[in-house]
């Protein structure tokens, strides 16, 4: 069996098995565990073969490349697959005590598996229409996950989320129609070849802009982010953590993939410029929005927006170094953000609320949690020697290379403001005196609450310690995206045109 198909086979299997075991929560849990461990193993295996032999691909039904459906995995995709697998295992472990039995009965495990399937397939498809299908798959699963439980708040949030994402999907579909109409293909590698020989203008440019709008909605970039702060804080924390880690990042991933491979930004200075402006504004406005919120989950949700700005800034600068930095930033951010959400979940468990005006005293009551929060929040803000410092440093270096001083200013200004809102959470939840009752948890229960957080905090520390090695890897992924010859060869066959 081709290594590329591994991850999906296990996820499809796990999803169907969960469906068959409907209503039997423990069985579903163990099925998901097995599926996700298999996913992690096959993702690691895939990463190893991509690292050694270059990008890998599979043509479904054995139709040769531009005609059939292609799945192709390069270094960037395989790294994202590993990250997704780790994240889903963490989610699974955290879900044991953090959501109610009733919630699990309504198909929580099934939905997370389906969503993960959509995410993993989006990370590795080589066909634009297939990317659309994967997007819809993960969006539909996320619609249901978001509204599961049907509280008033959740339903309202779901409506906003569904409507705006629907508009994004329509833009995506229109862009695909224009691309197929003018360029005659939807295979990313084939499109890349077509674009190499011809100037991009007229209808192609319109299609590129439509794609940019569609992905920007999913990645929650500046003028299109309003759905995110209105919806992410309503579902149970574990759902938010899962969304925060993966969903907006799929949008960012698609932006990076499409605007390096299909429409390289050096041929499209207009879009590069628009993306650059959007990235800077996203960073600044996201972080300012976070300053104005006063519950933990709301602050963290709005912060997601500002962090996506950094990733897209790396793309907009468009050098191999900058794209490598964006890849590094994305991995760091997925772990840091998810971990902070998980910590807010534990806070909620202890104090019964995450409203900062009613929390307090956790530094005394749960010193270990305070320590974990410190690691994650300082990593997010970018304090050395944690991962966030290096992530920001690499993007800053890329900006300095291009003598782009405005970006540099934004990078540092925004990280100071990030630190400011992290300190706000620290002061209100950990430092000040306890306000309400503190609900202890048993040793056995705390294993499932704490072990994911400890794991992610360790990863953040290790990413800081081994940042040079990881950056080399990310740089290679960036150059693979920037010079897609090896990817084209993997998809379109040996005689590279």
């Amino acid at each position, binding site marked *: 069996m081709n290594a590329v198909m591994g991850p999906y086979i296990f996820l499809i299997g796990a999803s169907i098995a969960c469906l068959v075991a409907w209503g039997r929560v423990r069985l579903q849990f163990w099925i998901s565990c097995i599926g996700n461990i298999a996913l992690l193993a096959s993702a690691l295996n895939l990463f190893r073969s991509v690292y050694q032999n270059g990008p890998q691909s599979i043509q479904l039904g054995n139709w040769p490349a531009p005609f059939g459906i292609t799945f192709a995995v390069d270094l960037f995709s395989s790294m994202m697959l590993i990250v997704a697998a780790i994240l889903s295992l963490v989610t699974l472990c955290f879900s044991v005590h953090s959501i109610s039995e009733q919630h699990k009965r309504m198909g929580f495990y099934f939905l997370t598996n389906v969503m993960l399937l959509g995410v993993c397939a989006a990370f590795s498809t080589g066909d634009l*229409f297939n990317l659309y299908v994967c997007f819809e798959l993960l969006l*539909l699963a996320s*619609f249901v996950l978001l509204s599961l439980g049907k509280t008033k708040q959740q339903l309202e949030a*779901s*409506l*906003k989320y569904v409507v705006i994402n629907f508009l994004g999907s*329509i833009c995506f*579909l229109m862009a695909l*129609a224009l691309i197929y109409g003018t360029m005659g293909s939807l295979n990313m590698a084939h499109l890349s070849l077509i674009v190499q020989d011809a100037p991009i203008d007229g209808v192609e440019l319109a299609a590129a802009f439509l794609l940019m709008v569609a992905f920007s909605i999913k990645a929650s970039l500046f003028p299109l982010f309003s759905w995110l702060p209105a919806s992410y804080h309503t579902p149970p924390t574990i759902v938010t953590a899962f969304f925060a880690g993966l969903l907006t990042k799929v949008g960012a991933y698609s932006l990076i993939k499409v605007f390096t491979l299909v429409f390289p930004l050096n041929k499209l200075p207009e879009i590069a410029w628009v993306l650059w402006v959007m990235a800077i504004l996203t960073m600044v406005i996201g972080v300012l929005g976070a300053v104005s919120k006063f519950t933990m989950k709301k602050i963290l949700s709005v912060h997601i927006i500002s962090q996506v700005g950094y990733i897209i800034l790396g793309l907009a600068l468009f050098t191999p170094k900058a794209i490598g930095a964006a890849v590094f930033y994305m991995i760091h951010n997925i772990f840091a953000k998810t971990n902070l959400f998980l910590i807010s979940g534990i806070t909620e468990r202890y104090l019964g609320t995450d409203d900062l005006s009613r929390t307090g005293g956790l530094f005394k009551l749960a010193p270990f949690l305070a320590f974990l929060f410190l690691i994650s929040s300082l990593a997010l803000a970018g304090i050395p020697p944690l991962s966030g410092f290096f992530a920001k440093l690499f993007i800053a270096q890329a900006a300095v290379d291009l003598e782009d001083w405005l970006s540099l200013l934004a990078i540092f200004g925004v990280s100071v403001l990030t630190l400011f809102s992290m300190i706000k959470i620290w002061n209100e939840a950990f430092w000040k005196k306890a306000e309400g009752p503190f609900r202890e948890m048993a040793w056995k229960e705390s294993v499932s609450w704490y072990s994911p957080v400890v794991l992610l905090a360790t990863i953040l520390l290790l990413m800081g310690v081994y940042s040079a090695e990881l950056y080399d890897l990310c740089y290679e992924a960036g150059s693979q995206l920037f010079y897609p010859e090896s990817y084209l060869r993997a998809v379109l066959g040996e005689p590279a045109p």
Partner: protein
Amino acid sequence: MELLYSVVIAVLVGCGMYLFLQKTMIRLILGAIILSNAANLIILTAAGLKSRKAPIIDPANGSLTGFEADPLPQALILTAIVIGFAVIAFLLVLSRELYRAKGTQGLSKMRDTE
């Protein structure tokens, strides 16, 4: 023919967007339905609207002659219709639940999660 279709699509997108921006849920959903159909029509139109033969290989000849229609747009549209149907179905259920929970379908009353 393309011109006619383009005008139809423009009108559909215009109507869909107008309904999409209205302040009640049911109009929003109607707008969504129209918009998704307009997108499907764009696929059909952009891929070319010529009356051609069915793309079936003649056994005597052994290959296509180059005057056959492209079957891919139909396949794409079929997929898009199914996906659109799923999203619209979800939206309808969601709006019903929301109406039960809040007792209104006015979108300007939905300000609790900002």
